[in-house]
């Protein structure tokens, strides 16, 4: 594989400072601020707090605001490009939340109203509009999501599986984040003053930014993405590590990945939220990284507000602008730099030659990311190629409606279903009640699964990284937060529920439990979230020598599951569960391997099944390699999914048993994680039990199991022996 250079060939931005690159440049040059009192929704009886709200958004159709923000920046980034991107990778945390909140407040329970609630629906909408046939991935690592999306896109391009990726982030303001950050006392009542000695907190914002990243084609490029690094503090659900341990690790990893040294950095675009803890933690990390001469530094969050999942992408665009326009944006809001921080931020916009920028984005749960952007071809080095491939399975565990791993596998072996919803005490029987007193159903499920998978691996390796997929995240916390918010006249929301509602809170709990300071990434791609987390683990694992977790989990919730998940709405009884793997590159004692083989968009893609068959090595290979096929057809896609399956079976001539696994697990977004664990457990014995096949037991005879996901995406994972 040849080294890859990744160029930014198109950019789009929508923020409180305006829409488009030109307006943004103008506002940055003039040192304007977009922070003003909120107008988007009523906060009566309280006065609105200052926020970074996008003004003049003309609503085009019924799509939620986040989707519209995303579309606006995508249109700008794709304006000069007629070729469909091979993948879309977006950071999104609020998705359709603003719309959902309004309907929930009115207790309007028509499922159609919630169709675009899912964070993943933003990337899917963009992918559909731009005829993207590849993956549409959604990262939800709180405030680092946009930067993590760029890191994932960078590795996709370096791996050679794609040549053009639309990457970025989008989040709209909503009550959940507005009141949630306020409940945590993290809002500055006069507007964010990052790095100022009188700072009191952040200003929540909204926006979107997109970068069209292209491999090895410098034509029309504005800048180059040289590298990116990610880390996890593994310290606290909300507060950053006081010495900036994880922030420093992410910056060092980004610089190493870029093939440069800290001395090459001309400007650091700080995360700089304006909270007491973030700015101190980040300053400590900066002072460690640059012990003597410091580059120019500024945070733009006093001008833009903090657009959460969009921020990393917004600031990547600003970093590129600082290079193309020889300009360092001001640290707006800071008039008296805090002497304790020992930093000298750029107070006024200044014209300087900037070739290399380090842009920081740190999120709740200690999810840190840093991106290095440079002038095109400034450095001789090019990105290290990424080698992908199967993971050795060290251990696995699952939970379903009937019980934890042993009980689930027993039930399935007797041909029974494992639908339903396990009582929370049984589900988290391996957790100490005191330790998890603040965790509700979803984080308990994820943590319990991680511990069980680790135990099953023999518990020798300590996984350093966590890749968690969830279709819907912490529904209980989200619902409870909004319910109490509304019941108390929008006065007294629960800070604990807000912390728990964040999609990556569960991943953060796992990191704290296992001291996992490597990448900690939560993917929220609907029914394909587990596959997304496996894909990202695969892409990023080159940097990881230790074992890692790949987990898929979803809780069921009344009323939210039926409102949000169209596959669930028709089911009489709710089901939930998940599966977890402890994986490692190289060899494992079990002699079993888990691998993601294919992930394609079925929309705009009539050849998706042919393509799947090609990726699986053709009909002969499929028949000889896989002793059984587990097919996942979400109920909402029953018709299409069954047609896709028939198409697959007839073209491939596949004759071995096919198991329609959602009929066993019940309907929930991460059912494929349970299917993968099921496959691994059967392969440990080499036999698929007869009752499951309504016939004789099947001896796998060293053949593998294929797990395909059908519906609006078509995915394939395999569990194979050595």
């Amino acid at each position: 594989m040849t080294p890859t250079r990744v160029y930014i060939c198109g950019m789009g931005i929508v923020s409180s400072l305006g829409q488009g690159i030109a307006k943004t440049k103008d506002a940055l040059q003039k040192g304007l601020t977009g922070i003003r009192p909120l107008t988007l929704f009523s906060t009566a009886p309280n006065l609105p707090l200052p926020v970074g709200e996008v003004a003049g958004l003309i609503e085009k159709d019924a799509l939620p605001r986040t989707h519209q923000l995303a579309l606006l920046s995508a249109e700008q980034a794709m304006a000069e490009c007629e070729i469909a991107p091979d993948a879309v990778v977006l950071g999104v945390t609020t998705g359709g939340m603003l719309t959902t909140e309004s309907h929930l407040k009115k207790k309007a329970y028509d499922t159609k109203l919630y169709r675009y609630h899912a964070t993943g629906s933003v990337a899917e909408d963009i992918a559909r509009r731009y005829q993207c046939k590849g993956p549409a991935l959604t990262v939800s690592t709180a405030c680092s999501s946009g930067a993590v999306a760029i890191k994932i896109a960078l590795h996709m391009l370096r791996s050679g599986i794609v040549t053009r990726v639309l990457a970025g982030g989008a989040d709209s303001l909503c009550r959940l984040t507005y009141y949630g950050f306020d409940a945590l006392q993290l809002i500055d009542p006069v507007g964010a003053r990052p790095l100022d000695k009188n700072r009191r907190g952040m200003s929540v914002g909204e926006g979107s930014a997109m970068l069209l990243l292209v491999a090895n084609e410098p034509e029309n490029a504005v800048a180059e993405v040289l590298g990116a690094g990610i880390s996890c503090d593994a310290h606290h659900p909300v507060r950053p590590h006081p010495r900036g341990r994880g922030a420093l690790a992410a910056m060092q990893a980004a610089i190493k990945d870029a093939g440069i040294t800290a001395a090459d950095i001309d400007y650091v675009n700080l995360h700089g939220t304006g909270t007491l803890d973030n700015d101190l933690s980040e300053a400590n990390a900066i002072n460690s990284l640059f012990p003597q001469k410091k580059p120019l530094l500024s945070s733009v969050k006093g001008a833009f507000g903090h657009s959460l999942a969009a921020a990393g992408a917004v600031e990547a665009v600003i970093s590129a602008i600082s290079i193309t326009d020889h300009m360092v944006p001001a640290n707006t809001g800071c008039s008296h730099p805090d002497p304790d921080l020992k930093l000298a931020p750029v107070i006024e916009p200044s014209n300087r030659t900037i070739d290399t920028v380090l842009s920081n984005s740190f999120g709740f749960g200690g999810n840190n990311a840093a991106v290095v952007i440079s002038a095109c071809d400034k450095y001789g080095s090019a990105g290290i190629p990424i080698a992908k491939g199967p993971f050795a399975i060290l251990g696995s565990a699952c939970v379903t409606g009937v019980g934890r791993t042993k009980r689930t596998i027993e039930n399935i072996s007797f041909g029974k279903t494992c639908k339903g919803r396990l009582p929370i005490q049984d589900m988290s029987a391996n957790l100490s009640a005191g330790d998890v007193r603040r965790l509700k159903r979803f984080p308990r499920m994820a943590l319990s699964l991680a511990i069980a998978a680790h135990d099953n691996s023999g518990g020798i390796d300590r996984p350093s990284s966590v890749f968690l997929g969830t279709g819907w995240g912490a529904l209980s916390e989200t619902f409870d937060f909004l319910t109490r918010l509304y019941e108390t006249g929008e006065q007294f929301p629960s800070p604990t529920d807000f912390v728990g509602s964040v999609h990556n809170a569960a991943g953060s709990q796992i990191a704290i439990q296992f001291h996992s300071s490597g990448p900690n990434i939560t993917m929220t791609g609907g029914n394909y979230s587990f596959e997304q987390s496996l894909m990202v683990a695969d892409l990023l694992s080159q940097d990881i020598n230790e074992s890692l977790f790949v987990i898929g989990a979803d809780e069921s919730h009344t009323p939210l599951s039926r409102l949000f998940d169209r596959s669930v709405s028709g089911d009489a009884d709710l089901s939930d569960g998940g599966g977890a793997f402890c994986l490692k590159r190289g060899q494992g004692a079990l002699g079993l391997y888990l691998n993601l083989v294919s992930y394609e968009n079925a929309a705009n893609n009539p050849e998706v099944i042919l393509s799947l068959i090609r990726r699986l090595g053709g009909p002969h290979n499929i028949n000889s390699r896989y002793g059984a096929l587990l097919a996942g057809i979400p109920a909402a896609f029953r018709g299409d999914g069954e047609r896709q399956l028939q198409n697959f079976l007839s073209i491939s001539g596949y004759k071995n048993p096919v198991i329609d696994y959602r009929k066993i697990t019940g309907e929930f977004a991460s059912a494929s994680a349970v299917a993968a664990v099921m496959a691994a457990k059967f392969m440990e014995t080499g036999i698929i039990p007869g009752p499951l096949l309504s016939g004789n037991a099947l001896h796998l005879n060293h053949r593998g199991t294929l797990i395909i996901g059908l519906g609006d995406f078509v995915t394939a994972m395999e569990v194979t022996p050595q």
Partner: protein
Amino acid sequence: MEKLLNELKVKIVEILNLVDVQPDDLKEDDQLVGGNLGIDSIDVLEMVIMIEKDYGIRIDTRELGAKVFATLRTLAKYIYENSPELSN
């Protein structure tokens, strides 16, 4: 004051979901945050909301919070002296 102390013990155990802790296990003069009960900064914020909701008192700076939440007794005293609800 005694009544307020007992009331707070019950509320704190309930809102913080303190497992296996009885209201009487909370001692008036023990360190409230960071002590044996495992109460941390997120719990403090949950208590802040409860105090504002039930007693009409806003504790919105970290300095004040550190003083007020030192022990259960300092908390009760602060509420007792500042609550418009209790003075009515």
